[in-house]
C-alpha cells in the first residue's frame, strides 16, 4: 500500500470503518512513513477530541420512567374509554328520552285528531239539524233555535201544521230570543206538545 492509498483510507481507518485486511496494510505502512503518520495523528486528534470525555450515564433509569409512563397512559386510556362509554350511554339515554317524547306526542296526536274530527263533524251537524251544540247539552230532539223551521219560515212539514199563525211564529221567535232557556231542555215544550 502506498501513501496515496493510505491518505484515501486514513479517515475511515481512524473511524474504525475499514476492512481488517486494509487496516493491517495501513498499520504496516504507518510504521515506515512519517508523512502518513502525521496525517494519521491529525485525524486521530479529532477522534480523541470527540471522545475525550465519555458521555455520562443517565442520572436515573429511563427504562423505569418509560414503563411507568406506559402504565399511566394505559390507565388514562382506560379512564378515557370508561368516560367515553358513560358519555355515550348518557347521550343514548338522552336520545331515548327525546324519541319517547316525540313518540308520545305522535300517539297523543293520533288520539286527538279522530276525536277532534268527530267533534267537528258533530258541530257541523248541529248547523243542519238537532244535536249537541256548544251552547250546552241540548237533547237531540229539542228544536233547533237556529233552524228556519223553528222560525216558521220552513216549508210545510208533515208534522208542522200549516195552520200555524203568525202569532205562533212570534212565539217561536221569542223562544229563540230566550235561548238560554233552552238549556233547561227538559222544560222546553216538545214540538209535538206544541202541536195542537
Amino acid at each position, binding site marked *: 500500500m502506498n501513501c496515496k492509498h493510505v491518505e484515501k483510507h486514513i*479517515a*475511515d481507518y481512524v*473511524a*474504525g*470503518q475499514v476492512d481488517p485486511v486494509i487496516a493491517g496494510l495501513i498499520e504496516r505502512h504507518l510504521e515506515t512513513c512519517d508523512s502518513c503518520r502525521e496525517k494519521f495523528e*491529525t*485525524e486521530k*486528534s*479529532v*477522534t480523541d*477530541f*470527540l*471522545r*475525550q*470525555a465519555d*458521555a*455520562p*450515564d*443517565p*442520572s436515573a*433509569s*429511563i*427504562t423505569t*420512567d*418509560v*414503563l411507568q*409512563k*406506559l402504565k399511566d*397512559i394505559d390507565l388514562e386510556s382506560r379512564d378515557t374509554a370508561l368516560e367515553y362509554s358513560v358519555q355515550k350511554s348518557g347521550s343514548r339515554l338522552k336520545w331515548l328520552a327525546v324519541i319517547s317524547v316525540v313518540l308520545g306526542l305522535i300517539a297523543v296526536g293520533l288520539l286527538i285528531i279522530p276525536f277532534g274530527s268527530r267533534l267537528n263533524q258533530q258541530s257541523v251537524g248541529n248547523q243542519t239539524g238537532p244535536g249537541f251544540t256548544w251552547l250546552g247539552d241540548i237533547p237531540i230532539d229539542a228544536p233547533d233555535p237556529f233552524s228556519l223551521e223553528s222560525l216558521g219560515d220552513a216549508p210545510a212539514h208533515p208534522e208542522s201544521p200549516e195552520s200555524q199563525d203568525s202569532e205562533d211564529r212570534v212565539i217561536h221567535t221569542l223562544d229563540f230570543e230566550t235561548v238560554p232557556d233552552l238549556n233547561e231542555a227538559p222544560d222546553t215544550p216538545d214540538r209535538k206538545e206544541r202541536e195542537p
Partner: protein
Amino acid sequence: MNDSLKPSALSDEALMLRVRDGDHDAFGELLNRYERQLFVFFLRQFGDEEAARDYVMDTFLRVYRAASRYEPKAKFSTYIYQIARNLAINESRKLQFRRTESLDEIKEDGGVQIAGDALDPEAVLELRERQALVQEALRQLPEDQRTILILVEYQDLTYERVSQIMGCSIGTIKSRMHRARQKIREWMENSEL
C-alpha cells in the same frame, strides 16, 4: 418456538414482534438495550441531559405506539434510530434560534451535567468543560453531518448502517463524514486546541 425463550435471548426484531402482541417485558428488554445508546445520541445532539432523557422517553413511546404497525423489514436498530433522528430534526428546528448560545453561556449553565457527583469537584469541573467544548464543536455542524458523526463516533455504527438510517448512499455518508471531521479540525485549530 420463540415463545418459550426469555426476552434477553431474543433478537431485537423478535422482541419487537412480541411488543406488537402486547408483551411489556419484551418492551422492557428493548428499553434496556437501547436506553444508553439513545441517551448518548440525544445528549450529543443537544448537550442537555434532562432534554436527552425526555427525547429518549419520547422515542420509546413513539416506538410503542407504532408497535402495532411494526413489520421486521429492516433491523430494529435502523428503525429506532430513524425515529430518534426524526425527533432530533424536529427539535433542532425548534431550538435553532438557540444555536447562537456561546461557550461561556454553556459553561455558566454547566453544559452537560455530569452524573456521579461523588467525583472530585475539580475533576467534575474539568470534565464539564471538556464536554462543553465537544458540544460547542458539534454545534458547528449542520444536522446531517452532526448526526453521521454521532452515529459513527459515539454509536460505533458502520457506514452501511448509517446509510440505511439516513436514507442515502454509503458514498454520501463517507463524504459528509469527512467534511464533518474537517470542520471539527478547523474549529479546533481556530480555538487553539
